[in-house]
């Protein structure tokens, strides 16, 4: 198929939209930490993006999309982007490569939730390179690069499993290895700037249109359908979480935006397969489920600090299962459980739980490895004065 100028223009724009989600995550998280760690939190998102860009250029893209080796990983055919050119199937290969790159960068940025306010920057760089190579790249290959999940028929339209289950359960494993923040549970660590988190949420919601609609890889009806259900699910999630938190007290704006993100996460794998009515159900359940997961996390005294597990992990898990429930052949060519195809639900469950186990397990091992060699965590004094000063020599007090 020759290059289509409309598709190419659309995916170029979507790529830029998704890139903006990475600093969006930085702002979303940055508002929730204490102000002595604000610069650190936003910087980590940019650093994650820059690291993954270089890794993706050298090996990452090849590991994810090179010729299949045993259904597990891609070959080294595209090492250093060798052979990735301006020609392609509808859109240039280079454009497909960079569109996939921005997803990989975002995923590592989401992971910083589990290590917020206590990670040693140098260790994050080492860990991040290992993680994106050994966790993200295989998962991307399984789903999109011709791996076993794709052969099995698992549906993941825009990365519910690859991006959200991996980063959510990865963040949980990381948090367990690095340990709680000093003083966690003894005194309150309230978000220092909620408008900043709302701004980050706005950038995420906005960028998500590129994330999901762009995953159609063409400027067509499917892209429009994905765009619409994405927005519906986000809205339903925002209202559901806000409503649930209203019962427990005041309807916080932080809960509302968290519900919006939960809705966006859950619709991600389903965006190219479900209709608007299903999107409402997916969003509402995501908002309620992720809120319950957050409450569970807090009750258990787990310091997965900024709730990537509750929102991305559990939201992603629900999204993967929901795709198997609500998929309809009228939209994406595959039917799910309620359209008389329970087999798809089983496939979705296998894919989601294998990915969950792999992401959690390998992240745990990598984190332990880095922790035992160079140490993941800053010293007690560095943590006390904050990572802005101790890791970057900067402070928002100017």
């Amino acid at each position, binding site marked *: 198929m020759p290059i289509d100028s409309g598709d190419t223009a659309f995916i170029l724009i979507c790529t830029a939209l998704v890139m903006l989600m990475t600093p969006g995550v930085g702002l979303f998280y940055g508002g929730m930490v204490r102000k002595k760690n604000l610069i650190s939190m936003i910087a980590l998102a940019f650093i994650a993006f820059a690291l993954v860009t270089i890794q993706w250029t050298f090996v990452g893209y090849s590991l994810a999309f090179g010729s299949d080796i045993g259904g597990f990983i891609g070959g080294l055919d595209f090492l250093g982007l060798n052979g990735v050119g301006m020609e392609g199937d509808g859109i240039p290969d280079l454009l497909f490569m960079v569109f996939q790159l921005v997803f990989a960068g975002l995923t590592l940025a989401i992971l910083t939730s589990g290590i917020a306010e206590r990670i040693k920057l140098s260790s994050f760089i080492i860990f991040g390179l290992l993680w994106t190579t050994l966790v993200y790249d295989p998962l991307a290959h399984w789903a999109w690069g011709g791996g076993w999940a794709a052969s099995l028929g698992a549906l993941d339209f825009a990365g519910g499993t690859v991006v959200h289950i991996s980063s959510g359960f990865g963040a949980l494993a990381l948090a367990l290895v690095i340990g709680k923040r000093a003083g966690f549970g003894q*005194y309150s660590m309230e978000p220092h700037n909620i408008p900043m988190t709302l701004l980050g949420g706005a950038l995420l919601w906005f960028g998500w249109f590129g994330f999901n609609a762009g995953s159609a890889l063409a400027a067509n009806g499917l892209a429009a359908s994905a765009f619409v259900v994405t927005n519906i699910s986000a809205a339903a999630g925002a209202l559901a979480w806000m409503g649930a938190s209203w019962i427990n007290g005041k309807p916080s704006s932080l809960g509302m935006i968290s519900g919006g993100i939960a809705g966006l996460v859950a619709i991600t794998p389903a965006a190219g397969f479900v209709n608007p009515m299903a999107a409402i159900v997916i969003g509402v359940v995501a908002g309620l489920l992720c809120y319950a997961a957050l409450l569970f996390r807090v009750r258990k005294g787990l310091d997965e600090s900024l709730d990537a597990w509750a929102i991305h992990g559990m939201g992603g898990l629900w999204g993967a299962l929901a795709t198997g429930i609500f998929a309809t052949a009228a939209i994406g060519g595959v039917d799910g459980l309620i359209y008389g195809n329970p087999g798809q639900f089983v496939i979705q469950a296998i894919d989601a739980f294998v990915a969950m186990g792999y992401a959690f397990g390998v992240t745990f091992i990598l984190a332990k490895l880095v922790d035992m060699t160079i140490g993941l965590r800053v010293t007690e004094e560095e943590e*006390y*004065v904050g990572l802005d000063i101790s890791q970057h020599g900067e402070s928002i007090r100017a």
Partner: protein
Amino acid sequence: MKKVEAIIRPEKLEQVKKALEEKGFFPMTVTEVRGRGAQKGICLQFRGKKIEVDLIPKVQIDMVVPDSDVALIIDTIRATGRTGKNGDGKIFVSHVEIVAGVRTDEMITE
């Protein structure tokens, strides 16, 4: 009347405030401040380079109370604000000549 100025760790504020409330001391003014004590701030050591954090964020609680309450307030702040490490803070007590209300004409001069 005495003025008690207590400079404490910001993360201890909630506990100290609660303990003071339980003893019946409600009126206070709280300010975010920066400062240093005898430890001259914190010096972080890295390979080959030093970063000095010479002014550390603290919280200052100001209370004006009858002379007879001062000892109890000091005890309460010590009991809840102490970690035992450098940087727990200081309490200063000074004489107050006049306390004048704004809403009323109340005037205490002793």
